């Protein structure tokens, strides 16, 4: 019984169609023409003579062949072999830098992450040609993407959608990878940036190849912000041209200062900075992520004002009601003869059209056409007349919005300034707006009474702003520095009662923060911004910025290299088969010479 035959590759059966080709070739092949000759020995003689001319060569060849056969046979008995070094195949781990820093752009504005991926693709092809390869991302450690495989397509596919760069460039994890995979494999890290100095030697000792990809443009970024009540000391690291550190409130620049990369700069936080200003390094460079520092300033309490006036002040009253900085309920008014015992209960005392005979009690004052004997400003009430502003410090927050050309003064007492008075607006009859400090008193002086009969000041739109700025300035002297700027990805320590859940300004909750392994706190998110530790109005606010983030761009690598070969290994190759082929060939040729061609 014939067993059923099956075929592993039945497609080859189609090759049987070649059988007719053989028949056709047989039919059309050229055949020898048959010729009758009178005497064949003549032909044989001719051929013999022609062959005999080469016979001596054949004889010589035969001798050489016999020598070769003998020598080859002897060599075969000796078991010859050769040793040579060959590049061994092994495993390659390609670590692609996908940390935050590869968002940096090169001089053409293209993110260097593109160059990193392109270089990684080349290395994948090289590595696949010499063994298996794995692919991992350098992103908050070493994250495996593709385990050992010889399929380059699989590796390349993993590079097609790598996700957004984020996280830190953890060189320590790369060193640890060497321990994990053993010394037989090679590790290549594709990154534009040089390892931090403390890792250079460790990487070299671990035989980790760092391959440069991309050439980021020089850039600088904020690495540290130290806050106090009046301003912030900002450390700017990196390189590139000089920049300006701009303080912006709701997009508007309210202060700026020049800064040289690699240095520290102090910038004042004006009283009108608002609760959520932002420090920005301008102009933008190749890595703008670390150029912005959100700040959280403490919420000011509404100011309790004590108005001291012996006459009605309708203009002030109307402004008080409209102002957002005045605690209307906590404010009060009194006569000039009674205010001294109430000064300590209010934040600011506004003296309106009153000349005190005694020194002012300790406190903060706004003087509106008023005066006191120990202040560095004095008025001559006997000389009252028109005046006009002639010199102004336009950048001062008190008068920044004031249009002096529309300020017409009809009645004002001549004013005289003494040492310690900071004149902000000087007029033809003496200082019109000034500020000053004595031992216990800080004041802002406005020489003009807030009455439309005396000047147009109450009618100007900027007057309420000037008053508000004066109040805020006086109160801010004792304000708190506010919460520090925390580093993105850094540690957050919770206060009692707080949950590790951050809320954005829109009220959206972020995923629960991860607890640090050592239990010292929780890991902050990588995205800069302002967050609330709770969804209540009194929840704590924090500011998070990319301050000296481990993933930010570092100095570019200076050397670019391809994959090094695996260590060569010695291979012993036997020559017996080669000699056997030589021997067989020589024997066949010798047999042919003897039996077909003939040898003398």
């Amino acid at each position, binding site marked *: 019984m014939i067993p059923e035959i099956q075929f592993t590759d039945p497609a080859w059966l189609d090759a049987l169609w070649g059988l007719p080709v053989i028949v056709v070739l047989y039919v059309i092949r050229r055949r020898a023409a048959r*010729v009758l000759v009178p*005497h064949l020995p*003549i032909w044989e003689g001719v051929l013999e003579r022609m062959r005999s001319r080469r016979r001596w060569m054949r004889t010589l060849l035969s001798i050489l062949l016999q020598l070769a056969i003998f020598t080859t046979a002897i060599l075969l008995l000796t078991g010859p072999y050769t040793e040579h070094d060959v590049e061994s195949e092994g495993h390659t781990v390609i670590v692609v830098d996908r940390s935050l820093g590869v968002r940096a752009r090169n001089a053409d504005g293209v993110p260097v992450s593109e160059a990193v991926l392109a270089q990684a693709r080349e290395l994948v092809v090289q590595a696949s040609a010499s063994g298996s390869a794995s692919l991992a991302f350098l992103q908050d450690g070493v994250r495996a993407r593709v385990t050992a495989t010889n399929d380059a397509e699989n590796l390349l596919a993993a590079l097609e959608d790598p996700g957004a760069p984020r996280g830190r460039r953890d060189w320590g994890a790369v060193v640890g990878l060497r321990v994990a995979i053993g010394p037989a494999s090679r590790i290549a890290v594709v990154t534009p940036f040089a390892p931090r100095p403390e890792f250079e030697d460790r990487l070299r000792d671990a035989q980790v190849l760092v391959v440069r990809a991309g050439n980021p443009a020089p850039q600088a970024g904020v690495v540290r912000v130290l806050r106090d009540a009046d301003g912030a000391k900002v450390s700017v690291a990196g390189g590139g041209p000089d920049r300006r550190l701009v303080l912006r409130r709701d997009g508007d620049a309210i202060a700026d200062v020049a800064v040289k990369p690699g240095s520290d700069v102090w910038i004042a936080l004006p009283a009108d900075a608002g609760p959520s200003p932002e420090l920005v390094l301008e102009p933008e460079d190749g890595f703008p992520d670390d150029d912005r520092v959100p700040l959280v300033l403490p919420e000011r309490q509404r100011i309790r004002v004590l108005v001291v006036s012996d006459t009605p002040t309708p203009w002030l009253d109307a402004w008080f009601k409209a102002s957002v900085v005045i605690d209307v309920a906590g404010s009060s008014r009194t006569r000039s003869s009674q205010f001294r015992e109430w000064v300590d209960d209010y934040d600011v005392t506004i003296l309106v059209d009153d000349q005190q005979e005694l020194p002012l009690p300790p406190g903060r004052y706004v003087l509106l056409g008023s005066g006191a004997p120990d202040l560095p400003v004095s008025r001559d009430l006997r000389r009252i007349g028109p005046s006009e502003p002639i010199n102004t410090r336009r950048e001062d927050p008190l008068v920044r919005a004031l249009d002096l050309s529309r300020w017409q003064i009809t009645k004002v007492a001549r004013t005289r300034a003494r040492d310690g008075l900071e004149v902000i607006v000087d007029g033809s009859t003496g200082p019109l707006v000034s500020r000053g400090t004595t031992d216990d008193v800080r004041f802002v002086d406005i020489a003009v009474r807030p009455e439309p009969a005396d000047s147009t000041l109450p009618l100007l739109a900027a007057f309420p702003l000037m008053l508000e700025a004066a109040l805020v300035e006086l109160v801010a002297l004792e304000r708190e520095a506010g919460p520090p700027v925390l580093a993105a990805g850094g540690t957050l320590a919770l206060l009692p009662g707080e949950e590790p859940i951050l809320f954005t300004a829109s009220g959206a909750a972020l995923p629960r923060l991860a607890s640090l392994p050592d239990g010292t706190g929780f890991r902050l998110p990588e995205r800069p911004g302002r967050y609330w530790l709770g969804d209540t109005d009194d929840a704590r606010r924090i500011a998070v910025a990319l301050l000296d983030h481990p993933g930010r761009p570092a100095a570019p690598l200076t050397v670019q290299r391809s994959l090094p070969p695996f260590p060569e290994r010695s291979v012993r190759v036997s020559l017996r088969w080669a000699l056997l082929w030589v021997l067989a060939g020589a024997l066949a040729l010798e047999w042919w010479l003897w039996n077909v061609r003939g040898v003398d």
Partner: protein
Amino acid sequence: MARRRSELLDVEFLSRLERLELNVRKLSAGDRRGEVATRRRGVGTLFRDYRAYVVGDDPRFIDWNAYLRLDDLQVKEFEAEETPRLLVLVDRSASMGLREEAKLDQALRLAAAIGAVGLIRHAAVTCTLFPGDEGPTFRSRGSILRFLEHLAATEARGAARFLPSFQAATPPGRGVGIAVVLSDFFDTGQHAAALRFLRHKGYVTHALHLVDPRDGRVRPGELLELVDVETGRMLRQRVDRKLAAAYRGAVAEHFRTVERTCRSLQVFYARVDIEDPVERAVVDLLRRGAMVG
């Protein structure tokens, strides 16, 4: 391949041949008491001369009248009357039959002419078609027709075996005379031994070498299956121009070798092209070979 007698020898040519005289002096020995006087002294009826008697002479030929007059013994000599013998050896091997037996035709026409001259002059003509034929002997003019029929009935076959054929054609006791060998001499040296044999037997030998120029030609550039027409042996060979030229030279050298062999054996040698007119060739050959006077 049947032939007609007229193809071998027509009447007009025969009449021209009758005017030729067979040179009997070439004959060293024919049949005694023939019809043609020879220069050889012998027993005949035609007085030739006197000579002094020597011991051993037949006393019957002593001229006693002269002895009486001269007192000296003189012997009378007579010219011998002998029948001339012509041996015609025609090669009819397969090589002679190539290309529609062109060479064999030419050889038979030559043999017919030569044999006819011999028969007209009362010679005994033995015609051997070798291989395979010892050959009948024709002795009179009246046997010309039979002689021609004998020739016409032959056809090419087999391998030329010169020496055995010549030995068979010259049995012991048969007189010698003129031997005419017509062949293409395509053999390997055997013809030399055969010619030497004829010379040793005393034949005045003539070798007529039939040459077909096409024997030395071959078209180059082809893979040929060369078949020996006599032995059937085969050789496959791609023939290029160089080999074709070498073969042409080898054939020419073979012809020269045959000629040198003949001359060394004092054999009259003549090369006859198969394209030559047979009448002129016959007359020329007979005169150059001094077979006719």
